[in-house]
């Protein structure tokens, strides 16, 4: 018995050593793989947290919402911003600190519209629970990792992010009308209209700052017929154009006059037409 157990014991020990050696040989590769997976999953989590907490001001795709918050996904932000404000650390630490502590005084009032001149308004509230916000340090880090992941973006891809990339073999969108619609949806997304307006036909458009734009084409006619209407439009198209170019002329009842005023200068004539045509059909 003693001999048998010693012999078996030696064999088992050798097997054990082989297993451990095998683990050891693969350990570095496995560590690297798990590191990558953990990072990837933190980015996923950060994206969820961003969609839950930040879309109202920075848009669903972090493209910014005029008048509410700056874009966080553009080259300027990702490559210049930290240097511009004299931040000594990396982009990542800049993001973490900014998100955690918020910002008391706006650094770029041009993004804030009317709010910037309000001395009591905080540019961005703090988000970390350390400073009275709702998120924990790990949450903030995950969001920062997510935002940092925009770095991989080649700028030319920026325009495409909002609309799904057509799959191979799928029909390309038809020319003509569909094309104009695509331009309009792009604009609606890029300009951040979706941050304030809900619209069923545009993915991600669920904003509640402004009225939902579904059924606007029909509604527009009754608005201009209403005696309470203070603008100059005589047709529904004109009303929609006016609402975009000069929102203050008529402010929809129950909503504040916060829609940004500069869209008229930003948009070319074709782009404006595309938007109006598109909204008419809603």
């Amino acid at each position, binding site marked *: *018995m*003693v*001999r048998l*157990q*010693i012999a*078996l*014991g030696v064999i*088992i*020990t050798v*097997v*054990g050593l082989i*297993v*451990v050696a*095998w*683990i*050891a040989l693969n*350990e*570095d590769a*496995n*560590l690297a*793989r*798990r*590191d*990558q*997976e*953990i*990072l*990837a*999953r933190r*980015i*996923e*989590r950060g*994206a*969820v947290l961003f*969609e839950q907490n930040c879309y109202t001001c920075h848009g669903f*795709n972090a493209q910014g919402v005029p008048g509410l918050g700056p874009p966080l996904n553009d080259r300027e932000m990702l490559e210049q911003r930290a240097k511009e404000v004299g931040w000594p650390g990396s982009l990542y630490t800049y993001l973490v600190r900014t998100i955690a502590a918020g910002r008391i005084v706006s650094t770029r009032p041009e993004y804030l519209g009317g709010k910037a001149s309000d001395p009591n308004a905080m540019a961005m509230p703090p988000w970390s629970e350390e400073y009275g916000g709702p998120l*924990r*340090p*790990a949450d903030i880090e995950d969001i920062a990792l*997510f935002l940092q*992941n*925009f770095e*991989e*973006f*080649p700028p030319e*891809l920026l325009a*495409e*992010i*909002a*609309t*799904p*990339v057509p*799959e191979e073999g*799928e029909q390309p969108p038809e020319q003509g009308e569909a094309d104009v619609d695509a331009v309009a949806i792009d604009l609606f997304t890029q300009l951040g209209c979706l941050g304030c307006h809900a619209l069923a036909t545009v*993915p991600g458009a669920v904003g509640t700052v402004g009225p939902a734009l579904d059924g606007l084409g029909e509604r527009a006619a009754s608005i201009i017929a209403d005696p309470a209407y203070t603008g100059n439009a005589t047709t529904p198209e004109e009303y929609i154009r006016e609402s975009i170019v000069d929102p203050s002329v008529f402010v929809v009842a129950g909503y504040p006059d916060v829609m940004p005023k500069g869209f008229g200068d930003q948009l070319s004539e074709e782009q404006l037409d595309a938007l109006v045509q598109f909204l008419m059909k809603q």
Partner: protein
Amino acid sequence: MLGLQDLRNLPRDFERKVRELLNQDLEEVVRERLDNRVRTITAGLDLEELRAIFRGDGPTEKPNPRWKVHTTSFLFHIRPRYYQRASTWFTHTFRLGWLSTYLFFIELITGIILMVYYAPTPNTAYRDMLNILSNVRFGLLMRDLHRLGAELMVIAVFLHMVRVYFTGSYKKPREFTWLTGVVLLGITLFLSFSGYLLPWDQLAYWAVTIGTSMADKTPLIGREVNLLLRGAPDIGAGGLLRFYLLHVLFLPLLAILFISVHYYKVSREHGISLPAVVEEGEMDEDRRRWAKERIDFIPDLLTHELFLSVLVLVAMVIAVTVWFDAPLESQANPQVTPLDTKAPWYFLWLQGMLKLGDPTLMGVILPGIIVAFLAAIPYIDNNPSRLAKNRPVALSLGVLGIIVLIILSYMGTPQWGIETPPAVRIIQDLVPQEGVGPFRKLGYEKIKLGTFETDTFTLPENPDEFDILFAEFQERVRNAPLASPQGVWEIDMLQPTLKRVKMRITWTKLDENGNVLLDEQGQPVRDKYEKVFFVHEDSGYEYE
């Protein structure tokens, strides 16, 4: 002082020394020196003796040098010099007490290594776990071994108790040994449970929240006990630190103390019991004498235990490399109650009991009575015989107890008695809050972009995994107990390496009488459940 004369003599002295050395039997000298070394290390066994031990031969000197080890060596003095043969029969003890002790040591060692990389605060604990997995060589191995060892130890201790019960080994004079055993069972369970919280993930947080809220139900002092454990009304930094201290300091010390007492009683005072047949059963007298013969600890039992040690350790290492993974969910979040919370499996029986009635009665008083009864078994059972045929009542009660335990544990599993709304259930099954689930399991590459609707989707001719999964979703949505249900998946890219998935189920709202609710425009009101999540290129879900 070294004089001139000495210097002059030096060459001659040197020559003489060399001659002396050459005249000796070199082999002899080396062996003698080696022998002395070996004797100091092995507390008195020389090389020849060691080899005899490993060959399984008898002692080479008189008096038996192997016995001396038991007085000169600290570690060996804990073990008796000899056992009665029958008490070491495998089928008598199944080595379960030994296994419990061995696992405890494995836990100590792996635990100390894990402690090096772990700080018990809410902001660092979870991060440290991730670091152990992704940045510490053999970190995953240590963690898995520690977790597996803990669960095995619970099993081993429990089975050990069961065997002691069925062999009647708790009877006079071993009542006190049994009592310390019951304390050890409690310590083992609480060691496991206190360790459960430390990773600070959702699984841990909610299991422990439920566990400690049970303490709340204790009459009179419940609130105080709970506060003492948690350090605050809710588990937070204070609670984590307290559980940590319990887990790495207080309970291990207590365990070492009680294992020592327990072991002292077993090996020094009473010896391991003989099987009942040998002690009082009918048996050929020669065979009985043989069964009661003394066998030495060295070498028979020593080699046996060494053999078992490597066997168990290697089996554990293989188990964790092949299939056993210590779970790690997302970071603990007091704001998000998971859909399925469950107790660690060794407390499922308690959760099952809680479903049966009043929490104070079922969660505190009854378990208290059970423990008291367990401790009192040797004093209640005054049947002097240990033979199975003389203990019909005790044995049937034991079997009954185990069956009840299994049933209660089954009732404690989450499926039993808790319902989730159908839309939530369908999506939760596809993309669970924790873990991977079939959708993520497809992997980044196979997740298609676009909008997919249950109303319009038809399975293409050569469906891929994605299509099949959507078809299953379609099937479940259509059959869900909801009024005109509709399901949508919207999938687009948010970043070049990140896909965004929206899953939504909408259905028509009904009032209590089953009538369709209408809004101001006369349209039916739709209810919806939506989940938005992301899949990153490198997440590696497909490999899990």
